[in-house]
């Protein structure tokens, strides 16, 4: 292949117009140029707020994890159900996500950047006041939204994109549809295991079927709360998570022994807020999920007997445990408990009770198999077998070890007749950024460019146009 020749456009139907794809999630916000295979900009959706010199300051992006500033508190502009609550801050976080890495800071006024300083007496009297350029003035923007986003939120989104960011063209796509596109399917049943929500989205010919969209709060944060409940009940001693920023030094200890570490202390007025600590604890829990937590692969629930009559718990106990070392040096081998923390995603009764948890105990209807069942019963019977043979698993929490095996087992047990086929990319990035990648594909297609809502159309019809065009 001659690198100086472009691939023929007809070969892949691509035509890149340097569009930006913005995929805001509850935990992270992804942004990048369409046509690329991973988002260039990945920032936490949480932002930090603190007071300095009497005025409020905000921190966006990964910077919030770095410095425990006095009084630093963290917030999330998106509500627990995945719908934006604080629009002002959401706009700022999103704007940061693409200005920080993609569009770049616009060159400042050359008169003010210090390079062209001239003596004060020579300062020209009439200074041109540059009209402030909008951050997205030359890139079309494709944004994603959950399938249950209300019309008001959609209109607000296009308003921000058009008026605040000045994008020439805009489109709002459902993240379920995009995740299906990322797997190369126009019709699929998308199982999205996110941080705040798990959602089931039936997609038919690139359109979601609204009556089949189901979601429940048993996402990654719920699993974190289960892990905290487990730590509280831990058998030799309850485990408290001390984030890294509170550890000054540590020495290695035997498994199960008291940690020996020197802690940093902050004066009461210098200490960051509790929400900051919670956010950093969440990072440790995230590592715990990646290293230790495992989904019982089935068949049958963890509390039931396996196919050969042995209780599954026994089998789980027989498998070797996994060690984990906490930031303060405490380490322990986790046996069957590592299966228990996620079992409630499939079996509501298996939830570890914790009165302090912000999550109420899950109901059976919130578990994954029931959600899928409810979702399928909401769509036409003719397409159900097709959906079942195109189950797309996406979302970072679906990377839990053994998750797809278990999901497959549950679906096969529930629907023995039709063929069940799960398509879950093995590549971590493809799983985490499924909907972003789908958006990247979509926005770089030549045939898509007729779908954009242009600025002109927006001005003509108003924000309501998003309901008509982005179906």
């Amino acid at each position, binding site marked *: 292949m001659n*690198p*100086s020749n*472009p691939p023929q*456009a*007809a070969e892949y*139907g691509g*035509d*890149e*117009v*340097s569009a930006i794809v913005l995929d805001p999630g509850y935990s992270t916000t992804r942004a990048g140029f369409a046509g690329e295979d991973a988002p260039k900009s990945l920032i936490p959706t949480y932002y930090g707020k603190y007071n300095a010199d009497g005025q409020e300051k905000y921190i966006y992006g990964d910077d919030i994890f770095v410095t425990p500033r006095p009084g630093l508190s963290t917030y999330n502009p998106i509500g627990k159900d995945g719908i934006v609550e604080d629009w002002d801050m959401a706009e700022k976080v999103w704007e940061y996500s693409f200005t920080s890495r993609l569009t770049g800071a616009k060159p400042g006024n050359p008169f003010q950047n210090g390079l062209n300083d001239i003596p004060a007496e020579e300062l020209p009297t009439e200074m041109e006041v540059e009209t402030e350029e909008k951050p997205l003035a*030359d890139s*079309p923007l494709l944004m994603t939204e959950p399938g249950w986003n209300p019309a008001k939120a959609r209109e607000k989104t296009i308003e921000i994109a058009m008026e605040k960011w000045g994008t*020439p*063209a805009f489109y709002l796509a459902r993240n379920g549809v995009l995740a299906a596109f990322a797997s190369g399917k126009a019709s699929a049943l998308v199982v999205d295991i996110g941080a705040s929500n798990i959602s089931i989205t039936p997609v*038919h*010919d690139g*359109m979601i*079927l*609204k*009556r*089949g969209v189901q979601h429940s709060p048993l996402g990654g944060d719920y699993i974190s709360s289960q892990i905290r409940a487990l730590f509280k009940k831990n058998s030799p001693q309850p485990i408290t998570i001390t984030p890294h920023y509170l550890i000054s030094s540590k020495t290695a200890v035997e498994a199960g022994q008291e940690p020996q570490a020197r802690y940093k202390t902050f004066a009461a007025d210098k200490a960051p807020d509790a929400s900051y600590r919670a956010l950093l604890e969440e990072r440790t829990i995230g590592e715990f999920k990646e290293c230790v937590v495992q989904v019982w692969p089935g068949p049958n629930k963890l509390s039931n007997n396996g196919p050969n009559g042995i209780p599954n718990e026994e089998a789980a106990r027989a498998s070797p445990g996994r060690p984990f070392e906490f930031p303060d040096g405490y380490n322990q081998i986790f046996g069957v408990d590592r299966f228990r923390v996620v079992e409630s995603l499939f079996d509501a009764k298996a939830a570890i009770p914790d009165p302090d948890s912000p999550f109420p105990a899950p109901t059976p209807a919130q578990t994954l198999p029931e959600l899928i069942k409810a979702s399928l019963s909401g*769509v*036409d*019977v*003719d*397409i*159900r*077998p097709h959906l079942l043979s195109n189950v797309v698993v996406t979302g970072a929490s679906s990377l839990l070890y053994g998750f797809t095996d278990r999901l497959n087992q549950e679906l096969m*047990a529930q*629907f*023995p*007749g*039709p063929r069940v086929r799960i398509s879950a990319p093995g590549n971590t990035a493809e799983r985490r950024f499924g909907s972003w990648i789908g958006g990247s594909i979509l926005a770089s*297609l*030549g*045939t898509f*460019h*007729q779908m*954009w809502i*242009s600025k*002109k*159309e927006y001005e003509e019809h108003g924000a309501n146009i998003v309901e008509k065009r982005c*179906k």
Partner: protein
Amino acid sequence: MAAADVRDMLDLPAEGQPRPHKKHKVVEKRPEGITRELYALLGERAPPIAINENKYKGRPKWMNKLRVRPWRMTPFTNGARSDDLVLNHWQRKHESNRPPAPEGSQMDVDEKKETTEGEQEEAPKPLEQEYNFAKYNIKARLPQKYSDEVYNRHLQNNEWTREETDYLMELVHDYDLRWVVIADRYEYQPRVDSEADANALVPAKHYRTMEQMKARYYYIAATMLAMEHPPSEMSEAEFDLHEKMLKFDPDRERDRKELAALQLNRNAEEVHEEAMLLEELKRITSNEQNFITERRELYSRLEVPISVGNTTVYQSSQGLSQLLQTLLQADKSKKRRSILGPEGAVASPAGQTPTTANPHSRGETPSTNPAAANKKGSTASVPAAREAQPIRTLSAAEESRYGVQHHDRVTAGVQFRSDRAQKLTQAKSNVQTLKLAGALAELEIPVRLFMPTERVCKEFERLIQSVNLLLDARKVAEKVEGEIRVLEAAKAEREKKSQPDASGHPEVKTEAEDGTGVLQSTAADGDANAGQGDAETKEDRNHKRSASVLSGTSDKSSKRQRR
């Protein structure tokens, strides 16, 4: 000699272990950048490290001499859009003001390049050229919009208001006839007209099923189509479409979907059962296929004319080997394995003539299970080897079902049951044979049985026996009748002698010799002289009966007399 023969002789199973594959030596290619001598030192197994470094292969040298063709961000509009949104994409720069080609040795290279470039540049013409992807913007073909008048005249429906119909048509247009999506997004809120409705807090919501929507839409589409072209003027495709749309039956569609839902929600046992049944069905159909082919094979073999040539040719070893060769040739030319299996493919050199060379075809008789083939000891090996079933005892009913038989004494050699049956039809004398054939023809039974199963053969044997019996009986009866006639003639003679005044003496005598005429003539006599009348005829009959009884008892003696 073929391997099959050796196996046959040594009583080895027909299919031995597959021959081990020949090891083909993998000759690893010497990677570049390592000398042959060094590579030889490495031995057979190269170390698991990559020796060749990944060199950056730049552009080929000749390409450096080409001019760089720049790309430029160019604005474009999309013809499929109603507004003229201008987006930018990278396009190869269109060069009109090309600098003159460099002189010298690169001239020919450049010329070639120019021609190819010229072709490429024909295609993209900036701006005035239509956008490449606009042609993919296609919409579903939908019926024309109906006017108020048309609606009122043709499309009125009690269940659908005009507003709802409009809403439906709009959705159909928006979603390009994707009914799944249309049914999903259908949210028609009837407008509140009257005060009473407006007072109700929650307007009565009624759901439309996909079938209702489809029925309504198809009705409208069919009507509009018929108004555009009357059915008599429609093209074939249009007419088909019209018919299909008119014949849409929502109830049936609903029933179908209910069935589909049932099918989808079966439990594991039902699914398992279905899988088993399907497997069984597959087995049965494949068996049937085998059955048919084997039966055809069998028939073709039965129809082979019986060899009449003498076998002396094959008695010498040379003749035998020649026969073997010809058979092998014939088998090869058939291009497929004979059904007899490997040992059948080669006619065993046991001195069998081709006419009896196929003893196993009987064993493959498809009319019974393979188990039935066990009935003949000589054929037992083929199915037994194939089936390798454990021996189990059968009940009497099963035995009859599978046709299992137990012989006290098995005759040597192989014979066809049909042959044996046919032998029965051959009587000792030719006349008798013909008679037998006649009787069978009268009963419409073919001489060669179509299906010579055990039971049929038995029945056939019984039939032939009884036919023989009846034929014997007939023969005897005829003989006795003849005797009766003779005796009656003698009696008549005697009566005539006792009545010398009887008229027509010579005629009666001739008639008496004729035999059959006797009774008639006597009857005529009886009629003629009414004086004797009935009494005499009765006496006659009695006489006859007694005679037959007599002859019945004495038939052996009469037979002897006749001989």
